[in-house]
């Protein structure tokens, strides 16, 4: 109980401050939890390790959670891991249920965060040993499993698959980076592009371009007419939030929280794959899969429970292997080394007090996140009432800030916004579907590395089936997932024919 002396008032003030700042960063399109932690890292020089970690953990939890706000209210994912929150969150807002969607999302976030914190605290070293059983082969199969969501997400299956392939293709532009073990050579581009696209298109500008800028262009085309008078009526008549919404969501909450934690603990997979996978599984097991993507609360629950589950999950390899589980924890390593604390397989045993202090911090940050957001929501939800001629210029400006800052000052990332804004606008006109395209883009790079490296290591395609029992289980899940979406598609098709007739 020595660690209790670390828990002074300043500790909790820092948690609260971190969570608040994190939420704001997460809520600004293009600003991420990673960036929040990175910009505040220098502030921790002045603090000792425990206080520094308090601030950073608050930022991490707040940043991941804040992303749900623009995802639900504006259809712009505030962070990559809130991409699937837009699928059902924004349709809810359009029905006038913005506030309800936000509350559902926040409760789910809290649950996911607490669940993953509990898993982290109880099983970290054990799970780390499990995580290293996942080689490139198993990781490829996980990505493949996440990609099966495309089958059920597409309005038209063939167009959806084409869109996803285009997304993957776009993700491959640039070098096959040595940072992931590639040979560093360029592909899919012309010489004049090399200066700009050495590292390929950055994920975040692509996301906010496709979602934010493209939406503004579509509205501009229609002449920017206000719809918020209808919104006002809708707000009055909409369903109020009540916890009964979770009555049928217990399995969903638990499954998504665990999935998030699990994906978070696999080094390199991390981030957005977690919420995509949770969304896929909810869609497979949902009793009303046809409602998902049209404003079903369960979609929001799955996505948000998973991306907050990520926080505890990504800390598992960090604290029990010394290896970051996602990009944010990669920055957290800096905080440890700056204080001269080594992270690695012996960290927990050698720093029991720090470990316990961190666990309290993680718990406190999740609670702080919940309290801050749950009570601020009434006001935040009013964003949809801001007239478009005021709101859109602000969104454009903030997108520019986010895009420019995401790689610490690269102007090309700002142009990426516009390129993908125009691209997204044109694509939707010719039947290309944005959601599968984005998922292809997010997962394409990892799919390549894991697939090519598996073959490079083992030299045979059969390795994907014979590598380990885990691989066999993953194939089963993939088969179930594909089977479910075919079954559901045919059921929906039959229902449609019945109503037509």
């Amino acid at each position, binding site marked *: 109980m020595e660690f209790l002396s670390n828990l002074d008032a300043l500790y909790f003030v820092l948690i609260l401050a971190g969570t608040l700042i994190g939420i704001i960063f997460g809520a600004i399109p293009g600003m991420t939890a990673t960036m929040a932690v990175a910009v505040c890292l220098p502030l921790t020089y002045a603090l000792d390790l425990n206080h520094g970690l308090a601030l950073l953990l608050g930022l991490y939890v707040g940043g991941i959670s804040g992303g749900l706000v623009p995802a639900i209210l504006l259809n712009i994912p505030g962070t990559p891991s809130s991409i699937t929150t837009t699928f059902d969150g924004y349709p809810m807002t359009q029905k006038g249920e913005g506030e309800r969607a936000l509350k559902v999302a926040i409760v789910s976030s809290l649950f996911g965060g607490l669940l993953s914190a509990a898993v982290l605290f109880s099983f970290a070293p054990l799970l780390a040993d499990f995580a290293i059983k996942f080689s490139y082969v198993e990781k490829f199969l996980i990505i493949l499993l996440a990609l099966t969501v495309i089958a059920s997400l597409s309005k038209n299956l*063939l167009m959806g698959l084409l869109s996803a392939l285009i997304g993957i293709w776009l993700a491959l532009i640039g070098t096959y980076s040595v940072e992931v073990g590639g040979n560093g050579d360029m592909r899919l581009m012309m010489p004049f592009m090399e200066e700009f696209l050495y590292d390929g298109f950055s994920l975040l500008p692509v996301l906010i371009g496709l979602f934010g800028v493209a939406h503004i262009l579509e509205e501009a085309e229609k002449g920017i007419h206000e719809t918020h008078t209808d919104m006002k009526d809708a707000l009055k008549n909409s369903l109020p939030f009540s916890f009964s919404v979770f009555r049928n969501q217990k399995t969903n909450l638990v499954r998504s929280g665990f999935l998030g934690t699990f994906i978070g603990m696999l080094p390199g997979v991390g981030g957005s794959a977690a919420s995509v996978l949770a969304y896929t599984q909810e869609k497979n097991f949902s009793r009303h899969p046809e409602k998902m993507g049209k404003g079903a609360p369960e979609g929001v629950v799955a996505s948000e429970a998973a991306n907050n589950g990520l926080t505890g999950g990504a800390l598992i390899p960090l604290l029990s292997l010394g290896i970051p589980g996602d990009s944010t924890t990669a920055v957290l390593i800096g905080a440890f080394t700056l204080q001269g604390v080594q992270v690695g397989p012996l960290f927990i045993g050698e720093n029991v007090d720090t470990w316990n202090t961190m666990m309290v911090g993680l718990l406190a940050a999740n609670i702080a996140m919940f309290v801050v957001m749950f009570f601020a929501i009434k006001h935040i939800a009013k964003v949809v009432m801001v007239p478009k001629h005021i709101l859109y210029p602000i969104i454009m400006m903030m997108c520019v800030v986010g895009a420019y800052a995401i790689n610490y000052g690269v*102007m090309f990332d700002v*142009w990426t916004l516009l390129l993908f804004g125009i691209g997204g606008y044109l694509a939707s006109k010719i039947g290309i579907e944005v959601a599968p395209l984005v998922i292809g883009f997010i997962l394409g790079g990892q799919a390549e590395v894991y697939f090519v490296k598996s073959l490079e290591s083992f030299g045979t395609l059969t390795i994907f089936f014979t590598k380990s029992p885990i691989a066999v289980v993953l194939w089963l899940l993939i088969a179930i997932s594909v089977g479910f979406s075919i079954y559901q598609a045919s059921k929906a098709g039959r229902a449609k024919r019945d109503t037509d007739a």
Partner: protein
Amino acid sequence: MGNLLPGSGEPLRPAWELAMPELFTVTIDFEQSHLFFPHIIHWMLLLMVVLILVFEAPAYLRRLRAGHVSLPFTRGPFDAVRFMGTLLLTVVYFLTMPWVGDFFPNTGLGFLIVSIPYMAALSLLYLHDRSLRQVFLVVLNAVIAPVVAWLVLAKLFAITLP
């Protein structure tokens, strides 16, 4: 699988592979490995386009002829001024921002100075009711929003802006 003896990374091979090993064997030359996956994706893209032409195109053409759907870009409202204006203003915004920023290196002032007129212009473009009161609100917003963003992000958090 965790066998650590040198040269023993070989997994068990199933019978069907032993029967015809060459069918499943893939050798990847590391020097050319950056092209391996893009090739696969190109073939899959081609396949998908062919499938769409075979299965989707005839039905689409039938609906088009029947008048149920229309060709892309030919229907619906098109507010040319607001649409092209948005594009033009944004391009000018992106071009001038780094240029102005270079006069005040690493201060983020390029962003601040150019954002104000951009936001004002975009708001005015979108505004339908251009009464004095509305214009005043728009200009006020165009000044306050970038200043707050700049003060908080560039000054307080030292985030690099153009």
